[in-house]
């Protein structure tokens, strides 16, 4: 049997050039994400995104206190536990979607992969993609409502990483030199942000 010129073999399985390239992209992404996860093992105290219920009460009291001379009902209309909980929840959740934090967790190539995954999920409206995105959202919710910062971080990071891998089909269409450049940039970025400042309060190897 003759094999087409652009067919390659990986672990005994035949695949065409584009499939091989895609497998390589997925492999490189997994290596990059694993490297980042390995770096996080140096973190002793993860930054918490937990919404402390006490913060809600404190916020309401502070805001009402500033409303000296304002009718109490009016003041309560603007400053109540529902409004404060909403604002503080949005604050916690948006903190986890911070561009700097996402870049620190995913690296430049990972951010691109994540953005492409979001875009293709919205564009194609595939149920699996939507469910996967929903898992990322659930991980954000988990980190917001649980006091366990470490578990919250890892669940969220793994959800982000797995969702980003969905973009491999699109990423392979990029020129090889650009992918290589992004891989190098990601390693470089992970190396110079070794202190994990945006999500780690205390790291023990400096």
């Amino acid at each position, binding site marked *: 049997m003759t094999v087409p010129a652009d067919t390659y073999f990986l672990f005994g399985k035949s695949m065409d050039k584009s499939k091989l390239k895609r497998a390589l992209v997925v492999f490189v992404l997994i290596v990059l994400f694993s490297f980042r996860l390995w770096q996080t093992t140096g973190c002793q105290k993860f930054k918490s995104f937990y919404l402390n219920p006490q913060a809600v009460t404190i916020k309401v009291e502070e*805001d009402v206190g*500033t*409303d*000296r001379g*304002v009718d109490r009902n*009016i003041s309560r209309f*603007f400053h109540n536990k529902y*409004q404060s909980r909403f*604002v503080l929840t*949005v*604050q916690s959740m*948006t*903190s986890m*979607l*911070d*561009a*700097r*934090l996402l*870049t620190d967790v995913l690296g430049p190539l990972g951010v691109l992969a994540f953005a492409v995954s979001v*875009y293709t999920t*919205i*564009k194609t409206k595939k149920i699996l993609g939507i469910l996967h995105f929903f898992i990322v959202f659930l991980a954000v919710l988990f980190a917001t409502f649980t006091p366990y910062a470490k578990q919250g971080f890892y669940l969220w990071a793994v959800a982000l990483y797995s969702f980003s891998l969905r973009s491999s089909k699109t990423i392979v269409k990029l020129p090889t030199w650009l992918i290589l450049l992004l891989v190098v940039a990601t390693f470089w*970025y992970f190396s*110079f*942000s070794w202190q994990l400042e945006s999500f780690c309060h205390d790291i023990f190897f400096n």
Partner: protein
Amino acid sequence: MISRNILLILILTIAALLRFYQLGHNPPELYVDEVSNGYNAYSILKTAMDEYGNFLPLTFRAFGDYNPALSVYLLVPAIVVFGLNEFAVRFPSALLGTLTVLLTYFLAKKLFEETKYKFSIAHISALLLAISPWHLQFSRYDHEANFMVFFVVLGTTLFLFSKNNYRVLVLSAISFAATLNTYQGAKIWVPVILMALVLIYKKQLLKWKLKLLIPALIVIVGAIPIVTNLQQSTIRARSAGIFEKEEPVKLFISGYLSHFSPNFLFVTPDNIGRHSIPGMGHLYIFELPLILAGIIFAIRSKTPHKKFLFAWLLLAPIPAALATPTPHALRSITFLPIFSILAAIGLVAIITARTSFKFKATLLAGLAIVAAYNMVTYFHLYYKHYPKLKAADWNDGHKEMVEYVDSIKDNYEVIAVSNYYGHPYIFVLFYSKYDPAAYHSQSQDKTKFDKFEFFGASWDKKVAGTALVVRPHWQKPDPPPKYIKEIYDTADTLVFRISEEE
């Protein structure tokens, strides 16, 4: 057509109302830079010279920053009409802020001229900018950055309209040349946005061939005040810039990304009290889903200008990322009005989406309720909380202090004012409307003029006679002097103690 114009007039009325209402009273007092701009404009009006006696300067020395001149010259007509006061100093900013809303209408309309929703997008963009906390904050504050926003939006809008009209291209160049002379950050932002325009619209530009030299020359002429004062013009850039700090690349990347933080944009603003309202982001929370939807639908739209729209969005944080601290709402004001336009696209996309009417109506009703609550809360925070919580950020108390001191100054040989809060001389000059011609000869020594002396940690009496001494509330000399007045700010916090000393 008439109803569209009426709608636009209504939006502009809202924009003007929100910018001019209580303009002289909230923010609670003039910040030191506003006072400096105001007095320099007053000095130009009376003597054609700045506070140092320089004839019609191209950059204003102020406190050693050497600020671009246009924003000071634009205050002169307002001072002619309203006199030297808070309203006059903030009037040009509020006026240009209102006009930026109008320009945003034309800009959005042009960007989406190929779509059948261009009018809806244009109206909603203008409305969202009219009520934008970010734009309102800087339209009610005499800061050069707001002047830059106006001229950049004007220049860009004219550029997009110049496809078949060379004169409009020349006007666009004039506008960009003017922008260079508004704000320090414009020295970076104008080249960046011009480069984006040139690269994206090079086909449109190249058809003018040699005629392009004239607009290019106009922009170069606009840069002359910067080039001729290069050493002085870059003082601010060197002090705030990242290049003389450690790890500038890291600072740039993290600074750039921080401006896309949803937390910074929608919930927790930057730490500078003059830039935002405590408890609010720079944009409304209800705009978050709209902007996300807007980005998605803009990507999918067929407008030929979408490259430019995204170029603006991605390039806007560059001036802010080249300085510290980050994120910085003032330096990243370059984002305006892109977020309003994106949110407008998002809203129009939702309204026109092919989905069930019930679902759409429920979604829009929910959004309207959140938006209304968001806005009402913003106005409550702005008018009730802000003057109290951020009084110190606005040098609150200085006006009352100077007015009191000025009313009794004839009874004293010398008046000593602490410089703890920074540059007290300019407050004395401004609020006492001191004759600029008389001040020019005394302007080099910032520690005294006329009867006034300005001191640091402690004051030593050097001349005979009774002295009036103004100290910050915490400075308590031993033995205690005879206190005759205490000055409080809007939050009822003691700012100054005024004493009589023999």
